[in-house]
């Protein structure tokens, strides 16, 4: 059979030897299988002749759990224990390893890793199971219906043998077109709370390999000297002081003039040589505004007529209804720029093989991004560019740049060399905080009218900020009629049945490079929605939980029913309304990425001397929780990420330059900030939905609602410490 070169190199890459069964889904969607030598596809499942099963994981692992979750799906369908399956990350191939929700694009984002793999990986596992069973049936001369696989052992009546015995024969069989998926009643692993992460041990003993840990023979380290203000360009440099640094090699202006690449023998030499480099900048194209000015532009946009009538509302009628209401609540909110600051600073390493092919070592969140960019930069066809996905030390969205920013930067630094030495591009924390991509600043202005009975009669919601998706390759999917859906998600399409809602959006001018940040638009929309719901409940004289439930009352609508379900569960588990003396609670509920999350934040203290977060109670409905403990961990982490930034963090600019530089002034949440988090998962038979992001949105408004209940002080501009709230 004819093999394509990419397939040949893939097989070489996975070191498939002897008769190995590989199962995968072809680009035409059909399941197919063959022996290692004759495979015609790239696999999701690999079984070596010795019976070792390996899941090929198409999503990168930044801590959110696919290196455990996707093997769980395959192990479940084949009939394995979790210690009988290994994992490895897929090569870059957008036809085979694409995110099914992203089109022909391989990438992780939008909390979709499990949602889009759920059927695909189970089908791949189920196909392998049926082929092994078919081979056993032939070998034993028994009917296949009586054969099962449990814990890696093929069984029929009194006969049993490990799957290894049938790998060679099974690899010669046709893959079933429609393998039978197991029923939930047959699950041993999916939903099993005792399943542990597959990457725990290596992350506790120093063996885990992140991109930062790549040390290729003879590699150089490159760092980029960047301008203080984005948009400035490098004209020239003086490296006479850099030459005093032992290990300094040389420097060169990047081809796009965005900075100067400094090359050194090791990381410390690169840091020192970059510090010593003097660069002459052309500031004519540089950002000169300060964040106060950017904020003023956003606030002015909120007061003007919105550019987009997002939900095609009769704005005049809604406005009139509010004007004529018994009670009117009006609030304006501001959300600052935020950095992602994943623990592992951005980095990647490029090498060129003797054959002239390019290999990128990267904690690759969206391999297709750099893969496409590199075809252009290096003038090579796709199959001559290889991406080796390493573990990633966090991301929170930062590694998923549609323009492959840091991978392109590394490539530009690499093409300036003679390519005889691999180049490892390393960002420092200062690069990350000062020169990164940010959650855009946003403003909301919300007017809500209530009648004498305390019912909402109108909800006018204006949003303004810099759009994230416009101008990127995702525009076709996520910008409709001019509306960047990520600017209004969480207000538009809210499950709340609010009568007389008018949503307006105005895009503000580009202030900096912006990017999705854990839960994207929901980072600000949930805050505005849930703080306003609390204010409306207060104005109506109603309990905040009961008030919300009145707008989630249609139990025939799954959206309302599931949102109401988590709200009730969180309230029940938190002992809503029955807190100890000195404690106060706040609640919020929000749907994002297909999942429903309610959170109760319980606090003590006071805003002047310090508030202490005593407990967060979370209820989540994410469909079937494949790995319940991973779901719990993602809620815990999402809550911490949301609260930490809402409490203390912002990126500000002075004359175009970022004011913050490192963790001392962009403070991470610390261990003492939250005393306890309890997570409760709603049992469900629905297909899995997101968990990486949905824990984040409700946490800040729940905290704000608790603070307001405690002190009467409502925080409408984040971070809270800038609005006069102290934390213990």
């Amino acid at each position, binding site marked *: 059979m004819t093999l394509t070169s990419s397939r040949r190199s893939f097989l070489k890459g996975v070191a498939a030897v002897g008769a190995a069964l590989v199962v995968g889904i072809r680009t035409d969607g059909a399941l197919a299988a063959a022996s290692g030598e004759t495979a015609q596809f790239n696999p999701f499942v690999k079984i070596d002749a010795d019976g070792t099963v390996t899941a090929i994981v198409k999503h990168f*692992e*930044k*801590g*959110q*759990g696919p290196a455990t979750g996707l093997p769980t799906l395959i192990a479940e369908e084949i009939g394995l224990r979790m210690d009988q399956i290994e994992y490895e990350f897929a090569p870059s191939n957008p036809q085979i390893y694409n995110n099914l929700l992203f089109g022909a694009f391989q990438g992780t984002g939008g909390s979709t890793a499990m949602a889009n793999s759920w059927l695909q990986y189970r089908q791949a596992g189920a196909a392998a199971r049926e082929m092994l069973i078919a081979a056993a049936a032939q070998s034993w001369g028994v009917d296949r219906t009586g054969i099962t696989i449990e814990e890696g052992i093929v069984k029929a009546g009194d006969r049993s043998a490990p799957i290894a015995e049938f790998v060679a024969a099974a690899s010669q069989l046709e893959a079933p077109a429609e393998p039978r998926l197991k029923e939930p009643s047959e699950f041993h692993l999916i939903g099993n709370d005792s399943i*542990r*992460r597959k*990457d*725990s041990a*290596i*992350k*506790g*003993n*120093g*063996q*885990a390999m*992140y991109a*930062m*840990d790549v*040390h290729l023979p003879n590699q150089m380290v490159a760092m980029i000297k960047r301008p203080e203000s984005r948009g400035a360009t490098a004209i020239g440099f003086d490296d006479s002081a850099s030459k005093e640094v*032992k290990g300094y090699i040389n420097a060169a202006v990047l081809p796009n003039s965005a900075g100067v690449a400094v090359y050194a023998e*090791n*990381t*410390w030499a690169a*840091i020192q040589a970059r510090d010593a480099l003097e660069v002459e900048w052309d500031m004519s194209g540089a950002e000169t505004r300060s964040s106060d000015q950017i904020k003023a532009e956003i606030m002015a946009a909120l007061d003007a007529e919105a550019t987009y009538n997002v939900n095609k509302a009769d704005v005049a009628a809604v406005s009139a209804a509010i004007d004529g209401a018994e009670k009117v609540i009006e609030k304006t909110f501001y959300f600052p720029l935020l950095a992602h*600051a*994943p*623990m*592992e*600073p951005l980095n990647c390493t490029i090498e060129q093989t003797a054959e002239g092919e390019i290999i990128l070592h990267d904690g690759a969140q969206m391999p297709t991004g750099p893969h496409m960019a590199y075809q252009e930069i290096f003038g090579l066809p796709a199959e001559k560019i290889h991406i080796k996905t390493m*573990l*990633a*030390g*966090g*991301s*929170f969205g930062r590694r998923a740049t549609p323009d492959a920013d840091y991978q392109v930067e590394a490539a530009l630094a690499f093409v300036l060399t003679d390519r005889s030495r691999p180049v490892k591009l390393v960002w*420092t*924390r200062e690069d990350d905080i000062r020169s990164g991509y940010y959650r855009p600043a946003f403003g909301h202005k919300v007017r809500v009218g209530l009648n004498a009975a305390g019912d909402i009669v109108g909800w006018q919601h204006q949003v303004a900020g810099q759009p994230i998706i416009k101008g990127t390759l995702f525009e076709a999917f996520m910008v409709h009629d001019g509306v960047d859906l990520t600017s209004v998600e969480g207000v538009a399409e809210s499950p709340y049945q609010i009568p007389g809602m008018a949503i307006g959006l105005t895009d503000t001018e580009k202030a900096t490079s912006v990017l999705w940040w854990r839960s994207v638009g929901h980072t600000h929309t949930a805050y505005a929605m849930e703080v306003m719901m609390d204010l409306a409940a207060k104005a109506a004289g109603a309990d905040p939980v009961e008030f919300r439930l009145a707008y989630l009352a249609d139990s025939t609508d799954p959206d309302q029913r599931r949102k109401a379900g988590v709200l009730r569960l969180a309230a029940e588990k938190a002992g809503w309304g029955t807190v100890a003396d000195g404690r106060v609670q706040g609640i919020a509920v929000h749907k994002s990425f297909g999942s429903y999350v309610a959170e109760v934040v319980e606090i003590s203290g006071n805003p002047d001397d310090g508030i202490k977060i005593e407990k967060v109670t979370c209820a989540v409905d994410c469909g079937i929780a494949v790995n319940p*403990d*991973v779901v719990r*961990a*993602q809620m*815990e*982490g999402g*809550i*911490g*990420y949301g609260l*930490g930034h809402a409490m203390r963090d912002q990126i500000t600019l002075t004359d175009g330059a970022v004011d913050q530089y*490192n*963790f*001392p002034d962009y403070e*991470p*949440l*610390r*261990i*003492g*900030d*939250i*005393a*306890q988090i309890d997570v409760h998962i709603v049992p469900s038979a629905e297909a899995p939905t997101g968990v990486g992001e949905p824990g984040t949105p409700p946490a800040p408004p729940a905290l704000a609602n608790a603070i307001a209940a405690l002190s009467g002080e409502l925080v409408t501009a984040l971070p809270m410490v800038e609005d006069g709230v102290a934390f213990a």
Partner: protein
Amino acid sequence: MAFTLNLNGEPRTVDAEPDTPLLWVIRDELKLTGTKFGCGVASCGACTVHLDGAPARSCQTYVEDVEGVEITTIEAMSETAIGAAVQQAWIELDVVQCGYCQSGQIMSAVGLLAENPKPSSEEIDDYMSGNACRCATYQRIRAGIHRAAEILEG
């Protein structure tokens, strides 16, 4: 300049400038990559190692100052009773997410338990406050230290 370091119980000779942070000697020269670079300003704790048994930030420790000092990194932690107990607890509770800070967390946790075999939650929060985790695994770190104390108690 040549320096001879006592790293994980073995003498290791490195050629480095005297003011080179120990972090970069360990990572770039000796290729022990379990010790992580997170901030470079002793603000996150990802680079924590033990110097004569006590946790220290290797990004602010200079190679010229640690000759004759017993340097221990995460790679040797399983060889001590406390280190092994903490690692076991971390696995039992699946403390890690991205994992990048966890070498430093474990080094600090071992330091705490060496000083205080049965720390309260408040003592844990106080001692561990310099170790940042952007994934916010803090609740499990706290529980992991309690669990390790339990394991060590037998």
